[in-house]
């Protein structure tokens, strides 16, 4: 509601009789309706399984769980697209018999192609017909060598980045679904961040591994023509790289790094997997992951194994070697196994990850907040206890200080808390620990509106007005003041909601609902109660 509309509402309310209450019925009726609705919405939280089945959601800090913010390295996705394109160009140039002197992928997501100057016309002609989408950046000529710089068009880069994030969300979602978490919340935040909330999860470390692994599965041949030791001392030969296998000693927990000299060229990737399962090797009682390829994968796998008999084929996951068995036979069945000293849990999780597929780009954990279930329960108990103690103190105080009128204010206060709870359930907002603090705070501040009115009424009584006159004057002159004073708190709550994250947002919501609820109870509900006694029951003195 805009501010103007808000005031407009109050003007309308004036006309219709909130101020004068000549016509009690509709105000009374709608108040009753609000109260009944509030009770209906609170019921499912108090008594399980009642209509309308909208319970108050507890935040992760109260029910325990994990909150992660991941960043997708979208540049990597662009980089792999460029890499693919550079491969294509290389192949096409060969086909067209255009000689080049090197195609390189530069760090700033650009391609540089070196061409002999006398070949340039042919080359540009070819590029213009076959790779028109690429953005031509610049050209530098030195002697007879010409270097051309190319990049992907902005729009396509944007599209690739967006796709990478979307796909990452989908992949992470299917991994988590298979892992078995109830009501996970996974959503894109900003441009390249993903928010993952896993309520009630206990195996947090496993879940983190499951989400964070890129899971790029590659089969690469071991370079057996060059010497590993020489490569370790100097630089690896061109076309090969050093990758490590990590072997953990189950007794001491120490990890040993075992180096391998592995060819850079990927023989086969995990993109063609159709299935991955946890299996136990009956002979050694060791868990492993069995994988199955689809038709194309099966064909490729059989070709690779057939062409490289007696050679070692390394199974590499995220640039870590898992095993490098010697190919004994041509494998035509399209099945393979990944071994690597797994525990059953690790093998189980790896199977899930492989089934869900690789992330299009690596992700990095930017923020993690994990709350154990015991802490969550403690937080709720402490928060609610503080609410009771503070609440009872305020109720007693109002009763002692304002007597009969205090009782009315107390009723309004209790109603206020019910309204906040109902609001939380109805809007499906999340109650967090700061949210409970917000409710406690509202208890203290909600009586403010009544205090303002009551003090005004007392003032009016002291200058000799009748109870009824004093009440009317009190409410009338206090209404706008109360409204002004509360709008500022609403502004603070609104800003907090816009800028705050997680738990703080929960605080903003309860504070906001609390302010609106206290306006309703103090300006409308209590007034009707007073009116009822002063008018209908003809009470002559105000107990205030």
């Amino acid at each position: 509601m805009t501010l103007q509309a808000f005031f407009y509402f109050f003007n309308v309310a004036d006309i219709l009789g909130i101020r004068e209450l000549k016509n009690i019925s509709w105000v009374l009726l709608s108040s009753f309706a609000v109260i009944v609705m509030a009770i209906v919405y609170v019921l499912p939280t108090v008594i399980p399984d009642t209509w309308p089945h909208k319970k108050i959601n507890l935040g992760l800090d109260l029910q325990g769980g994990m909150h992660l913010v991941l960043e997708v390295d979208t540049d990597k996705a662009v980089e792999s697209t460029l890499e693919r394109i550079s491969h294509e160009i290389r192949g096409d140039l060969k086909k067209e018999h255009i000689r080049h002197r090197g195609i390189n992928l530069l760090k700033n997501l650009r391609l540089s192609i070196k061409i002999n100057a006398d070949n340039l016309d042919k080359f540009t002609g070819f590029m213009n017909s076959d790779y028109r989408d690429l953005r031509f950046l610049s050209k530098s000529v030195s002697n007879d060598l010409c270097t051309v710089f190319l990049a992907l068009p902005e729009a396509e880069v944007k599209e690739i980045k967006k796709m990478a994030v979307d796909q990452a969300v989908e992949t992470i979602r299917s991994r988590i679904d298979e892992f078995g978490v109830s009501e996970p919340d996974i959503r894109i935040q900003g441009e390249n961040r993903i928010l993952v909330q896993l309520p009630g999860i206990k195996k947090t470390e496993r879940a983190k591994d499951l989400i964070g692994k890129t899971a790029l599965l590659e089969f690469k041949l071991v370079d057996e023509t060059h010497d590993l030791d020489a490569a370790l001392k100097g630089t690896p030969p061109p076309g090969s790289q050093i990758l490590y296998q990590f072997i953990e000693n189950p007794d001491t927990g120490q990890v040993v790094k075992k180096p391998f000299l592995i060819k850079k060229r990927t023989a086969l990737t995990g993109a063609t997997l159709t299935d991955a399962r946890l299996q136990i090797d009956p002979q050694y009682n060791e868990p492993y992951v069995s994988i199955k390829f689809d038709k194309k994968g099966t064909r490729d796998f059989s070709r690779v194994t057939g062409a490289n008999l007696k050679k070692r084929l390394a199974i590499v996951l995220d640039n870590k070697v898992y095993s490098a068995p010697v190919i004994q036979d041509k494998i035509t069945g399209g099945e393979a196994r990944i071994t690597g000293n797994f525990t059953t849990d690790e093998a189980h999780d790896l199977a899930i990850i492989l089934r869900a597929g690789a992330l299009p780009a690596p992700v990095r954990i930017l923020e993690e907040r994990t709350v154990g279930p015991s802490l969550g329960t403690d937080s709720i108990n402490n928060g609610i206890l503080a609410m009771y103690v503070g609440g009872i103190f305020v109720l007693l105080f109002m009763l002692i200080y304002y007597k009969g009128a205090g009782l009315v204010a107390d009723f309004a206060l209790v109603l206020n808390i019910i309204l906040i709870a109902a609001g939380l359930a109805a809007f499906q907002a999340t109650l967090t620990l700061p949210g409970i603090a917000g409710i406690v705070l509202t208890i203290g501040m909600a009586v403010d509106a009544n205090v303002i009115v009551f003090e005004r009424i007392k003032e009016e009584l002291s200058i000799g007005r009748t109870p009824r006159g004093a009440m009317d004057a009190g409410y009338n002159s206090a209404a706008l003041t109360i409204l002004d004073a509360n709008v500022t708190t609403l502004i603070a709550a609104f800003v907090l909601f816009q800028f705050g994250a997680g738990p703080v947002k929960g605080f903003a919501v309860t504070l906001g609902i609390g302010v609106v609820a206290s306006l309703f109870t103090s300006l409308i509900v209590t007034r009707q109660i007073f009116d009822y006694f002063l008018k209908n029951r003809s009470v002559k003195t105000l107990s205030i």
Partner: protein
Amino acid sequence: MQLIKYDSNINFIGKRKIAFFLSVAFMVVSMASLVIHGGPKYGIDFAGGTLIQVKFMAKTSMDGIKGGLATIGLGKSTVQVFGDPKENEYLIRADALDTATEGLSLKVKKAVELSTGNDADIRRVEMVGPKVGSDLREKALFSMFFALLFIAIYISGRFEMKWLLSLGMAAALLSALFFVWKICIFFNFENSIPVLICVALIGTLVFFWFLKLKYAMGAIAAIIHDVVITVGIFSVLELDFTLSIIAALLTIIGYSLNDTIIVFDRIRENLRKHQNNSLEKNINKSINETLNRTILTSFTTLVVVVSLFVIGGSIIHDFAFAMIIGIFVGTYSSIFVASPILLVWDLFEKQV
């Protein structure tokens, strides 16, 4: 029952000079502490880093925990008792380790269990990367600024009927801020946001001065006073500045303003009713008339916040503490900061 008689006439405004020195002294101490400490002591929300809350099943020595942490390369982390010492709960704070956090909580659990010989329960892990930390810091500052700006618009609009003027002022400020911000980005000024916000705040006050928005000026000055002192006390006591403290500060802003508006409202009413009275007399009268309400509401709010502080649990502790400070300072400032500014303004205008 009645706390203060209606005809009470305590001379609050007459003591404005004492109050002025008191406020200035507090603000100077706050600022000095902030300067000495190099800004607020940021918790991991804003500074980035890793925080682990561990509960031991039996009494454990701090040295034992530190020894265990040293074995896994976390020797530099700080360990502090969290909450009631009888609960054997500790907070471990380490620098942001980014990738190294993989399996960190399990490692910590094993290491401290081994070194202390007690079973440990990892109750909470929070890791905030440096990038997120600086993002949150920026967001927090912006939220404070926007809250002040919106409130300034509202007060100028409601109290002086200058909606258009205040909206225009806000728009001018915002666009100026935006351009300066863009320029800062262009020249790659790191951490330019705090400076920007300060400039914007001063700009806001100057605007108020020239546009003669005295009510807004008084209210905003009171808010700045409250926030500076609360942040200052946190800095003096070396308490962590976290996201929930930002929430507390914004609530304090709302609360303090609530108080100020109620006094201001009464001042306007009395100015209309008693036009023969001097401004000073009317302000004093208004403060006295609203004194009952001020004390009662502050008292009930204080009661609930103290109950949060005492029994609300360790996590909410600092939030409740900030609120306790805020209630005292906020109540004080609406009487001794916001209202005197109206008078001082008036005196100044008469002199000129």
